[in-house]
């Protein structure tokens, strides 16, 4: 099928009324969730996932994706206006965004981050379109051993770049794998770890875990701890427009940031956070006067914002072409695909062209919507920041309760979500990152299935994972990464200048 035909199918799919409506709702919700500190995007997607059960699969994924990349726009608003990031990937925008606001240039900063975000997203979509079909072709040649190795690499890679201790994140990944074994084993039909409870024979729902681990845990951590928001001034449209010099200053950072973002987004295990921090570091490194960073350098806000949006789009590449999620949100997207009966993997582009290309076209449509939402309509979001957290979190809690119930019409799930809320909080206190757990949970069943299949095909020869060249190469990378994690754990580097010393709340947010 030619590219032109694919585009036509994509446009047909994305231009349907329900697709357009849900795209708009998704990106709006995503921006909202990104704007407000204390409300996590991962929890939002987990909460809304059950609502998508009744939609067509294409529309469901368009909706969820909209929340994801929409979040990449709004996070910097609070960074610029209040020195308080809405989400972790926007933390670095505080460094130069807030000084710009104090210099009276808040409008300019907001405009440039919105435009940078748009450019980054479009760039990311282009890369997605260019690289996905060939990558899928490569992926089709993968056998179970290769997939096992690739998934394992993705999981270990995610642990190694996570905030905080790589060793602990690795533990989290494995715990996620273990939670994934609860339920009926695909290969043998034996129900595992159900402890006599009927509902556990059906495995623990991904959404329930996500809502507990990210929604409730976040609330437990944040109540009484989200600072009172001072009233930010209104932003006029005129104050937003940049001078020609400022435009020229922004072009190179956008290009560099976009490149960095596209790369880290596509890599399984790294995402928007790494992309934005790295882009900032790159700008500082290549700048002719690095001293201006931290005092309102335009490059310091444009590059990270372009990067995190580009990463938000290219993050879909491994998910859609290989079925390997790059971060916890992609894990939920994958889960959503599975729930709708769509098998993720290299055959997805060929088997479901409407879904893939419709999603791609919806990315473009969604980003245009976001540009409009974030420039002329920016005052809406600014007003949102005024809502005190104490009115927001009960909404989150009650929605989690109802949402969890509606997955399986089961009251038992409500106790499960409460349990995971507590468990998540304990993990947080002990310094464990919860996001890798979700990755392990989604990939666990598939990882085990591939492992068993590879072993059965090879008649019990475990060396098959190493003798197949691709699988072997990937496993070497896995061992190297594990070695690096171990080394890093016992020989920590001297603290270098890097991302700003954020308060512990933002530091441990590895959600997008």
């Amino acid at each position, binding site marked *: 099928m030619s590219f032109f035909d694919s585009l036509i199918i994509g446009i047909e799919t994305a231009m349907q009324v329900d697709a357009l409506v849900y795209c708009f709702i998704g990106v709006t919700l995503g921006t909202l969730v990104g704007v407000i500190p204390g409300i996590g995007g991962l929890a939002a997607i987990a909460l809304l996932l059950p*609502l998508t059960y009744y939609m067509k699969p294409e529309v469901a994924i368009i909706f969820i994706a909209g929340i994801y990349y929409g979040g990449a726009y709004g996070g910097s608003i609070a960074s610029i206006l209040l020195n308080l990031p809405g989400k972790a990937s926007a933390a670095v925008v505080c460094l130069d965004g807030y000084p710009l606001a104090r210099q009276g240039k808040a409008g300019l900063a907001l405009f440039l981050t919105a435009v940078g975000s748009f450019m980054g997203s479009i760039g990311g979509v282009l890369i997605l379109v260019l690289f996905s079909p060939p990558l899928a072709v490569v992926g089709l040649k993968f056998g179970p051993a290769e997939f096992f190795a690739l998934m394992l690499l993705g999981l270990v890679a995610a642990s190694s770049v996570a905030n905080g*201790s790589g*060793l*602990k994140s*690795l*533990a989290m990944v*494995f*715990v996620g*794998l*273990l939670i994934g*074994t609860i339920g009926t084993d695909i*290969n*043998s039909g*034996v129900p*595992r*770890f159900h402890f006599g409870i009927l509902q556990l024979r059906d495995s623990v729902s991904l959404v329930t875990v996500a809502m507990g681990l990210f929604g*409730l845990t976040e*609330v*437990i*951590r944040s*109540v*009484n*701890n989200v600072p009172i928001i001072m009233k930010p001034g209104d932003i006029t449209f005129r104050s937003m427009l940049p001078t020609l010099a400022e435009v020229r200053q922004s072009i190179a950072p956008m290009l560099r940031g976009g490149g960095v973002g596209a790369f880290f987004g596509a890599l399984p295990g790294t995402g928007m956070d790494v992309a934005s921090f790295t882009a900032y570091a790159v700008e500082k490194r290549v700048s002719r006067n690095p001293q201006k960073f931290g005092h309102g350098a335009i490059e310091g806000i444009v590059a990270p914002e372009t990067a995190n949006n580009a990463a938000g789009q290219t993050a879909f590449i491994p998910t859609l072409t290989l079925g390997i999620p790059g971060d916890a949100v992609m894990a939920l997207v994958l889960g959503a695909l599975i729930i709708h009966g769509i098998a993720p993997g290299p055959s997805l582009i060929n088997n479901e062209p409407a879904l893939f290309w419709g999603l791609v076209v919806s990315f473009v449509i969604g980003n245009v919507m976001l540009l409009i939402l974030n420039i002329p309509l920016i005052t809406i979001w600014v007003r949102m920041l005024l809502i005190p957290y*104490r*009115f927001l*979190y*009960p*909404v989150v*809690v*009650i*929605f*989690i*309760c*109802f949402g969890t*119930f*509606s997955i399986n019409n089961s*009251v038992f799930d*409500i*106790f499960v*979500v*409460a349990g995971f*809320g507590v468990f998540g*909080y*304990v993990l*947080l*206190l*002990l*310094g*464990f990152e919860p996001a890798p757990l979700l990755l392990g949970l989604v990939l666990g069943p598939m990882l*085990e299935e591939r*492992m*068993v299949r590879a*072993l*059965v095909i090879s008649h*019990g020869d*475990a060396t098959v994972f190493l003798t197949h060249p691709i699988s072997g190469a990937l496993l070497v990378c896995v061992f190297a990464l594990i070695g690096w994690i*171990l080394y890093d*754990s*016992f020989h920590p580097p001297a603290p270098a200048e890097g991302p700003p010393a954020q308060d*512990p709340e933002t530091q441990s947010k590895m959600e997008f």
Partner: protein
Amino acid sequence: MQLNLREVLGGLLMFGLGLSVFAYSLLHYSIGSMARPGPGLFPAVIGFAVVGIGVLIVVRGAVAPIAEMPKIEWRNALLITLSVVAFGLTFRRLGVAPSAAITVFIATLADRSMTHLARLATVIALTLLVVIIFKFGVGIRVPLIAGVIY
């Protein structure tokens, strides 16, 4: 020997979890052979890996510099968890509206700065919101008020 409590506790948690899974898998599920892996193989291997990581974390806790335990929000944890558990207990027995009200009420108790009036307003507003969205919108098959209105 200085002990970094956070690390040691975390490592012990992983150790305990991994060991439990490992032991349970070996005792209750068949491991099978390499050519025919059984249901117990994967959990046992992963459980064992978790044990290993737990040990490493504990070891690191013994050698790494002391770090502070973050502040434990007992009140938050207790009240938020209680609110969700209360929902689970009352949802079918009392119906959508009463359970929502109770849950929101308990959840708002966690915030120290909320006035009684604000709390009342929040309970009423959110109960109405979820009734509209979930009872009339989504059509959840649970009575509005059990025994009184469906």
